[in-house]
């Protein structure tokens, strides 16, 4: 692999407080201070050069549903979106509740993945919320966190033990916050639009009670619980208040939740059906405030591919979720263009914050760090055409959207894996 010389870019590296035009050198899979000899030059004048972006919440569907996505196609979508690392969720078939599944994911990544894939392990066997999965063995197999994502552990005692147990292995516990009794058979946010559309709603409190539960258990076990895809104003407020008390709690937000509201559901388009659901304008504003004041430290896509035939059904029957890896950066940059976040703030949420949470030697351009770099044209205007996606699936509500900001090069371990025009 040739050394790379990234020239004249605006380098944003929040860990080192860097925001200046300079060159970045990559050699032998590391960020280096000076090049050993000749290097391939990548001209980056007028572009941003950031640590490789990390998405800590994606579904790659392997093993089990390679008709929706594979590690190969999912990581290609990630590369096109500017992501050098993705963290995949354990709700596969079989679930990632055993070391064999983790080994399979690693093998498939080695065979066909073009970005780093970090698997998570399950909290409970078969994600059923009844018995603990072999968390210690999963850690040895290489998981970076445990979560039952797609499901939520309802039994508070089991969740408590999971948090205590994971602490031994320095593994953060991530949770999809959803009270099953309150959410029941809801298909969208409960509010004005669910009432108008006659669709069964689920209240924001169905998320909030579990966020509150997680705060209390994080306090009890003195260990880190990370609340996945936070969507409600009250959840943001709960996390903000708990952090002030020093509780080891954190949260993430998805572009669709800070971009869209439940009003979008009015056409019954199933690409607006996700879990958690699109919520009210007040919730959307609160998420942006939470991102701006640091309450929510990560942005992720919750990339959830589904076959078109599965989505082309009655709203009640459609599966939850949308693809998001290719639109995430532009939708997030919109927060910068609209001056809700500074560029370094945004870059933090897509790099060093997830890296720190998951203890990865990534998310920075410090010398010696892994040579994962993303080059971004923040002002590039483009139209998202879902037919051009690298993902196997097409379930995006952002098809046809005019977006601003795009990754133009994605570099993983010193190798260029995606180069845009």
């Amino acid at each position: 692999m040739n050394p790379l010389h990234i020239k004249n870019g605006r380098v944003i590296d929040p860990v080192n407080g860097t925001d200046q035009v300079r060159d970045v050198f990559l050699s032998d899979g590391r960020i280096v201070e000076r090049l050993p000899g000749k290097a391939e030059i990548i001209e980056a004048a007028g572009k941003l050069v950031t640590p490789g972006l990390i998405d800590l919440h994606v579904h790659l569907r392997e093993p089990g549903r390679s008709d929706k996505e594979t590690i190969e196609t999912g990581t290609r979508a990630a590369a096109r979106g500017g992501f050098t690392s993705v963290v995949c969720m354990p709700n596969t078939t079989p679930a990632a509740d055993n070391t064999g599944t983790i080994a399979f994911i690693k093998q498939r990544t080695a065979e066909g993945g073009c970005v780093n894939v970090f698997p998570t392990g399950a909290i409970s066997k078969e994600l059923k919320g009844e018995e603990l999965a072999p968390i210690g063995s999963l850690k040895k197999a290489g998981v970076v966190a445990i979560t039952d994502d797609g499901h939520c552990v309802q039994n508070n005692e089991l969740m408590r033990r999971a948090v205590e147990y994971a602490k031994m292995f320095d593994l953060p516990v991530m949770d999809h916050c959803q009270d099953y009794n309150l959410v029941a058979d809801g298909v969208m946010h409960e509010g004005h639009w669910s009432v108008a559309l006659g669709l069964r709603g689920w209240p924001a409190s169905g998320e909030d009670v579990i966020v509150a539960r997680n705060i209390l258990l994080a306090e009890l076990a003195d260990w880190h619980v990370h609340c996945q895809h936070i969507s409600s104003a009250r959840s943001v407020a709960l996390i903000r208040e708990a952090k002030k008390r020093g509780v080891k709690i954190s949260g993430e937000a998805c572009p669709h939740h800070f971009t869209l509201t439940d009003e979008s559901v009015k056409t019954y388009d199933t690409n607006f059906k996700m879990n958690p659901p699109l919520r009210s304008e007040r919730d959307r504003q609160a998420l942006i405030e939470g991102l701006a004041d640091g309450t929510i430290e990560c942005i992720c896509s919750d990339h959830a591919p589904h076959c078109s035939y599965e989505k082309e059904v009655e709203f009640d029957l459609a599966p939850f979720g949308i693809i998001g890896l290719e639109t995430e950066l532009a939708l997030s940059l919109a927060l910068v263009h609209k001056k809700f976040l500074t560029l370094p703030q945004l870059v933090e949420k897509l790099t060093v914050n997830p890296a720190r949470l998951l203890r990865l030697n990534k998310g920075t351009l410090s010398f010696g760090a892994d040579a994962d770099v993303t080059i971004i044209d923040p002002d590039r205007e483009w139209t998202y055409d879902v037919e051009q996606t690298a993902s196997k699936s097409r379930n995006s509500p952002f098809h046809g959207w005019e977006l601003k900001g795009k990754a133009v090069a994605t570099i993983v371990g010193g190798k260029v894996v995606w180069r845009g025009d």
Partner: protein
Amino acid sequence: MNTTWQRKDLLGIQDLSVDEINLLLDSATAFKEVGERAVKKVPSLRGKTLVNLFIEPSTRTRTSFELAAKRLSADVINITATASSLVKGETLKDTALNLQALNADIIVIRHSAAGAPYFLSKLLKASVVNAGDGAHEHPTQALLDAFTIREKKGRIAGLNVTILGDILYSRVARSNIWLLTKLGARVTLSGPATLVPRMFEEFGCRVTYDVEEAIRDADVINLLRIQHERQRKTMFPSTGEYAALFGLSKERFARLKPDALIMHPGPINRGVEIDSDIADCGRSVILEQVTNGLAVRMAVLFLCSGGQTGEP
């Protein structure tokens, strides 16, 4: 009135203008007269094929659409969920495309999923008529209710209409709310708080949990059945308690305005939302609603098929 009907579909009342609603109601008046003739058939839809696609059970509405289509001389096919390929795992999309391949002109759909008619209308060239979708809309029911009110009271604007019962899960309630508020009635909703969320005030209704107050000044009372099939278990303690607190009993009936109309979209649960004798009394127009439903559905099918004049 110069409004002409431009829609191929009737998906809901919420999308309609006041003029469109009035055009439908006026056309229904003409079609009602057809139903009273010795020969109850007109050739308006001769050569057209109508499919009744009923994915959720229904007697009244399906029969009414079938008869309406036959009186307009259309050919009618009835498909019910249990007798269709849907039970073999076929999707609604594929079922609908197959019907289109047979050159069906009008698809009347009843479905337990809200929005299903919208899904079909985007997919098909055929006209799509919503015969009830989940808890969303039941536009022909609201039209026949309005037709009945107009016939009995001579107007809709300014009337006090109280809808009593399970509002949350009711498509009839929603379509009635859109229609009556558009036409200037004052709509009051009442029932258990778990089934009548305050949120409905955002749609221009009054919500009260004091049933006596809700019915006192009503010119029309529309009683709704408890939609057990759509409810979660914990919405109220028992039908006995419901009947005691919210049922239209003889005592409550005695306190109504003397000319208040009693309406119900059916099927009625005697002794729950309505006292059995009241259902059959002279001020109950429940069966006239059924008769008017036929006229309204003839008007809907006629207009959605391109009939322009509003006359058969």
